[in-house]
């Protein structure tokens, strides 16, 4: 080697920079720059490209907008009702699948995880069809004598929301279960044996051993579900089309409509997108803090 060691390490350091440059630049240009542009846009008002500076006008307008308030409420309904049910169900399923001498373990796991292979648009349309007036659910309910004629689940705000929640549960429970299964692999089986010898009931074992030991994983899935729920789009568009009368519309869906469906109002839509940004950031932060505290 002719080169002195100093220039060699410099060379290596330079290669390091070259290796990470494309990915880093892409993230800066495709995420951070647009994020700042969206903020600047949110301070302007006007239709299409005729924009003028308006300060915080768009933000003030938001909370007087009945549809926006509805979309915000919907996101929180899905968040408060669906996420806890889903995570708890996923935890139960995972701890059941973790039983030592369980038969057909692989079969159960594959079946419960299978919904994850369907795209969001596809499952939204499957559920829309299942719950249609002439859909399978109504056929069964009529045959069982529960209903006389088909009930339009998607025309009533409450039942439409319930269908969305059921669909979300179907699509994502298995996904979260896989995370918990991986987390459970790290827990020594002897811990459970000891608990059994001490006479702990299955429910006690679940709450006192499984849940605390899986806390980091639960935190991860809670944050993922929260950010995912605040950004729901495909389901709102394809399952209920936001209806009836915007009763099930989500924030992303409304932003899309404002930007690309109606006469574009980019400034107002950008302000709305910042509400999601702030909610995602602050809820993740709160969850991380809460996750830390109990240690």
């Amino acid at each position: 080697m002719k080169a002195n060691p100093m220039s060699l390490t410099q060379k290596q350091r330079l290669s390091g920079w070259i290796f990470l440059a494309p990915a880093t630049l892409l993230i800066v240009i495709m995420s951070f720059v647009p994020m700042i542009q969206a903020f600047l846009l949110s301070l302007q008002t006007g239709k299409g490209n005729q924009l003028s500076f308006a300060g915080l006008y768009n933000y003030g307008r938001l909370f007087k907008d009945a549809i926006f308030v509805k979309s915000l409420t919907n996101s929180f309904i899905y968040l408060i009702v669906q996420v806890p049910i889903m995570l708890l169900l996923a935890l139960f399923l995972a701890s059941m699948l973790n039983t030592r001498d369980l038969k057909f373990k692989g079969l159960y796991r594959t079946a419960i995880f299978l919904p994850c292979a369907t795209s969001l648009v596809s499952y939204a349309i499957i559920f829309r069809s299942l719950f249609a007036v002439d859909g399978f659910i109504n056929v069964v309910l009529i045959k069982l004598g529960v209903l006389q004629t088909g009930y339009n689940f998607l025309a009533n705000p409450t039942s439409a929301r319930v269908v969305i929640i059921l669909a979300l549960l179907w699509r994502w429970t298995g996904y979260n279960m896989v995370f918990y299964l991986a987390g459970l692999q790290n827990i020594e089986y002897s811990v459970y044996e000891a608990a059994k010898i001490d006479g702990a009931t299955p429910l006690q074992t679940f709450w006192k051993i499984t849940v605390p030991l899986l806390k980091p994983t639960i935190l991860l899935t809670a944050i993922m579900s929260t950010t995912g729920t605040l950004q729901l789009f495909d389901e709102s568009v394809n399952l209920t089309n936001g209806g009836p009368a915007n009763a099930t519309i989500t924030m992303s869906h409304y932003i899309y409509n404002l930007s690309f469906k109606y006469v574009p109002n980019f400034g107002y839509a950008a302000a709305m997108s910042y509400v999601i940004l702030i909610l995602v950031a602050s809820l993740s932060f709160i969850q991380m803090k809460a996750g830390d505290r109990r240690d």
Partner: protein
Amino acid sequence: MTKEKIKKTLTYVFLTVAALLSVFPLYWMFAAATNLSVDVSRGTLLPGTALISNFQNLLQNQDVLGALANSFKYSIALTLISLFVSSLAGYGFEIYHDKAKDTILNIILLAMMIPFAATMIPLFKMFSTARLLNSTLGFILPTLSTPFLIMLFRQSARAFPHDIIEAARIDGLKEFQIFYRMFVPTMRSTYAAAMVITFMNAWNSYLWPKVIMTDKKSITMPMMVANLKEGYVTDYGMLMLGVLLSTIPTVIIFFALQKRFTEGITGSVK
């Protein structure tokens, strides 16, 4: 002993019900795709014989083959380039790490928190000025580099022995050759996991293509399926065949690489 037995039976009952509920909507979709719309509305659950007529209706109604070709083109391009760019960066961040690079990585990770809705409008404006609407490049650019993949590859680079790198350097390999000839072949399973995740996300993505694919000729499978449900009367047989066609590729990948997929999404847990 009997208590144990009850517990066991309950476990099996619960798991069986959960498994059946998980599989049923997909089975129903498959059965509906082979039946006439009238029979689907009657609640039939058996596979029928209308597959071919549904397929003919579908071909008449939408440019299925075009959408299928587009989806494959966009998804494969995104997967290949994304794996290259992200693994190179993950490797770079770990192997050559110093204070400055660690700081940059931490800033990049913050991008995970940015909701797509917040970048969508400026991206649309940027891409329409750059004439990238309706193009493969337009489809792939926003998600070409993701913090998630960079982290996944950084994690696997951590397990890559430094001795190998030193030995390769002594043998006179250039830095990029070490990455290409040593790291890539060793980390085949990480690449497989990343491939499954990236391909599935690309294939299933909906919001961004809906924003930039303004030309009918450029639409993707999810967009095509969503278009099918528009109209006054729903032809369930045709609709479910569309859903089935858009689901087959991901289900094949899911079954072929299920283990890798679960390893991939749970990589962050361990």
